[in-house]
């Protein structure tokens, strides 16, 4: 009975969302202001219904209602409660419902926090979000009903994929989806601006915090996913250029370009068409990501077995949204205008170059991601694009971009000059070069990649310092503390995010340059010396978890006779699916991780002999620390008072 209520809630939500989309748009075309009044109540009602449906499905997971096909497929009564609740996004149907639920959350947020927008614009905005909701609700009801019932109720469920039974499962999907779907708000802003014919500095000011919010969620979501892959997959990698990772990374790159271009639109009234185009691209790539992940065309942890009708539906929906948006853009962009002029060398031109770099990088990733899918779809064989392509091409494209990142914040708006910039940055460059040579000499190995990576990181860090200094000098009076407190959160946030990227680059460079990997065969009682650390294998302990049994290796790590840590990697057997899982054990430290994972017990030799993999990962935590700093930087810029909406006089 209860699951049926969820199903009905979705059907009614579809009707309400249709009204939410159609009525205000009809109002816009007939200039009938009365119709605008429907937007907010319809949006709230529709969001509420979707959230009810979501809660009902999650409740069914909570009470182990295996009469629902989806619950029976992705959960199990022995699954710990927290994973049972998170299992709702562990399969196809639930994750699409989750997608649309997050959209409902964003829609609600818009109805509550965008009250100060002019009625006409706000209604159009909400109507556009309604259109997206309609598309996804149709998708759920026609191809992926999460409330489908089973005629014969199984005794127990088939369990959540053991790979997903991890705290990462609780946080990674919601953050990522908040980011993905958050770009729908920026998209709706852009479409509403095109429909309304209004695009000026105020528009950019309204849009900025929403776009930054989506970007922050996406940054944190990707970082969390990367960290999860690092410890869970057992191979010590943090980024694999897997098509699904790329699917989340492309909207991030475009989103990054978008927040910079929005800054120019807001401050200088320039880049207007470009900003609108980027908003459309960011959300289109989010949709493309959904298509790639959910259509079943991929081999991945993220891909669920699906049927082709779903892929077709998403493809058609994708074509309608992207095609429609671009058509509207082509028709209306000329009315928006290009905006203010600027000099060949100015902060505007530097930000434009940064946008070109990010756009190109996205294109390169897109090529590597889609090409194998297209070749396969045309029946020309199966190919894959090796990670070296992404590594080499991505770094080559980003290096000039990161160089510009050091110059941009220091350059003046409208017109900058080379002597002035050189004067401010010469010491930063000198210090960066020296440091980038100094660190490798301490580590004992230098390569071009290491040098370039460290150079970029130190360059961005020292440029942040120059930015602070320039700003301090511009304020003539007051103590240092007063000067610093006058900076404003937006400026601080920008610096923090840039600094975070530098920290990230340090992590990536150090791991790539200096990581060590060894595959060992170890007998019980044996000690092996790797990288100056002694590893003593004290055998295997049996262990019992809630829904698995495990063999836990005991490795005592010491250095120069001093104990460092006890590492306990596990080999788990999940009982419901009889699936074996490797759980790595990691000793974390700011400058290095020691990472141990168990291979398999070797037969035919002495008892208690195992193959073991040991990694040393210098500075690997800096990768995620950097992402965290970028996220906090984004949050800081959002709280800036300038974006607090004040009542707009109509």
């Amino acid at each position: 009975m209860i699951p049926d209520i969820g199903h009905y809630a979705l059907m009614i939500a579809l009707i309400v969302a249709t009204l939410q989309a159609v009525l205000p748009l009809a109002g816009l075309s007939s200039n009938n202001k009365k119709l605008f009044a429907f937007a907010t109540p319809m949006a709230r009602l529709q969001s509420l219904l979707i959230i009810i449906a979501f809660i009902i499905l999650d409740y069914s997971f909570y009470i182990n209602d295996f009469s629902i096909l989806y619950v029976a497929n992705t959960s199990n009564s022995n699954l710990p409660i927290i994973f049972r609740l998170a299992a709702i996004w562990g399969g196809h149907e639930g994750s699409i419902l989750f997608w649309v639920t997050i959209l409902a959350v964003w829609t609600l947020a818009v109805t509550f926090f965008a009250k100060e927008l002019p009625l006409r614009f706000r209604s159009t905005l909400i109507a556009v979000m309604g259109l997206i909701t309609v598309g996804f609700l149709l998708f759920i009801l026609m191809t992926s009903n999460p409330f489908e019932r089973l005629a014969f109720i199984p005794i127990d469920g088939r369990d959540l994929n053991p790979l997903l039974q991890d705290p990462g499962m609780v946080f990674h999907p919601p953050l990522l989806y908040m980011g993905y779907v958050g770009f729908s708000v920026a998209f709706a802003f852009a479409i509403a601006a095109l429909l309304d014919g209004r695009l000026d500095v105020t528009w950019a000011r309204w849009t900025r915090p929403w776009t930054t919010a989506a970007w922050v969620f996406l940054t944190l979501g990707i970082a969390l996913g990367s960290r999860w892959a690092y410890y869970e997959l057992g191979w010590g990698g943090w980024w694999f250029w897997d098509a699904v990772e790329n699917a989340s990374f492309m909207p991030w790159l475009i989103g990054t370009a978008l927040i910079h271009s929005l800054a120019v639109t807001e401050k200088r009234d320039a880049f207007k068409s470009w900003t609108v185009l980027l908003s459309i691209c960011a959300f289109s790539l989010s949709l493309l990501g959904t298509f790639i992940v959910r259509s079943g065309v991929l081999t991945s942890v993220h891909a669920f077995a699906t049927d082709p009708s779903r892929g077709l539906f998403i493809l058609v929906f994708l074509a309608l949204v992207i095609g429609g948006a671009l058509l509207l853009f082509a028709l209306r962009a000329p009315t928006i205008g290009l905006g203010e002029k600027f000099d060949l060398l100015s902060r505007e031109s530097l930000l434009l170059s940064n946008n070109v770099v990010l756009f190109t990088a996205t294109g390169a990733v897109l090529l590597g991601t889609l090409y194998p899918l297209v070749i396969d779809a045309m029946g020309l064989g199966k190919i894959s694009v090796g990670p070296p392509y992404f590594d080499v091409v991505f770094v080559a494209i980003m290096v000039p971009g990161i160089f510009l990142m050091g110059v941009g914040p220091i350059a003046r708006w409208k017109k900058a000059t080379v002597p002035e910039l050189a004067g401010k940055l010469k010491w930063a460059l000198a210090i960066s070069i020296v440091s980038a040579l100094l660190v490798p000499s301490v580590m004992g190995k230098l390569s071009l990649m290491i040098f370039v990576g460290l150079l970029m990181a130190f360059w961005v860090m020292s440029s942040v310092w120059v930015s602070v200094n320039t700003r301090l000098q511009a304020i003539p009076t007051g103590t240092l503390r007063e000067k610093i407190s006058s900076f404003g959160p937006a400026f601080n946030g920008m610096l923090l995010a840039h600094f975070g990227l530098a920290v990230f680059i340090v992590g990536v460079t150090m791991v790539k340059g200096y990581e060590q990997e060894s595959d060992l065969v170890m007998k019980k009682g044996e000690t092996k010396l790797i990288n100056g650390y002694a590893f003593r294998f004290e055998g295997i302990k049996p262990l019992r978890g809630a829904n698995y049994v495990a063999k836990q290796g005991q490795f005592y790590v010491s250095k120069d006779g001093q104990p460092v840590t006890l590492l306990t990697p596990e080999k788990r057997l999940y009982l419901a699916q009889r699936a074996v899982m490797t759980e790595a054990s990691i000793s974390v430290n700011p400058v290095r991780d020691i990472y141990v994972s168990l291979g398999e017990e070797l037969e035919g030799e002495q008892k208690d002999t195992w193959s073991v993999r040991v990694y040393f990962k210098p500075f690997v935590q800096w990768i995620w620390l950097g992402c965290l700093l970028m996220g906090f930087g984004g949050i800081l810029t959002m709280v800036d008072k300038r974006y607090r909406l004040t009542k707009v006089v109509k």
Partner: protein
Amino acid sequence: MKSRHKRIAIIVAGIALLAIAATLLLQSFQSNLVFFFSPTEVIQGKSPNQGNFRVGGLVVEGSVKRDGTKVAFQITDTANSMNVVFTGILPDLFKEGKGVVAQGTQGADGVFVADQVLAKHDENYMPPEAADALEKAQQYNANKAAGEDK
């Protein structure tokens, strides 16, 4: 006039730069494409003699032999099978009789030296490449049977 010349020079330089970048990008792309072959296609000599490629199919029952961290096994598409060696730790879901994809190079002795072994992510799932290899082998077997009938 002078500033216009400067502008044109910068635009030309920009386009040249972009062209070089695009060429390098596509070159790197081309050299990093990894093609997939079934054991039958490898035996027919369709796979490259040099460079990386992928093979997929099922792990032959009873073929897995371990020597320390070295593993030797056979991959079959039911029509033909080939020898593969790999050094390192195999993925959790690598099992005899189950689907697998290996990436690496083929030595002069015909043994495939894998530097990467991919298995499926869950019990009910077959890597598409492996499924593809089995399908092709079925056709191959059917053709062969038809040929023998004649």
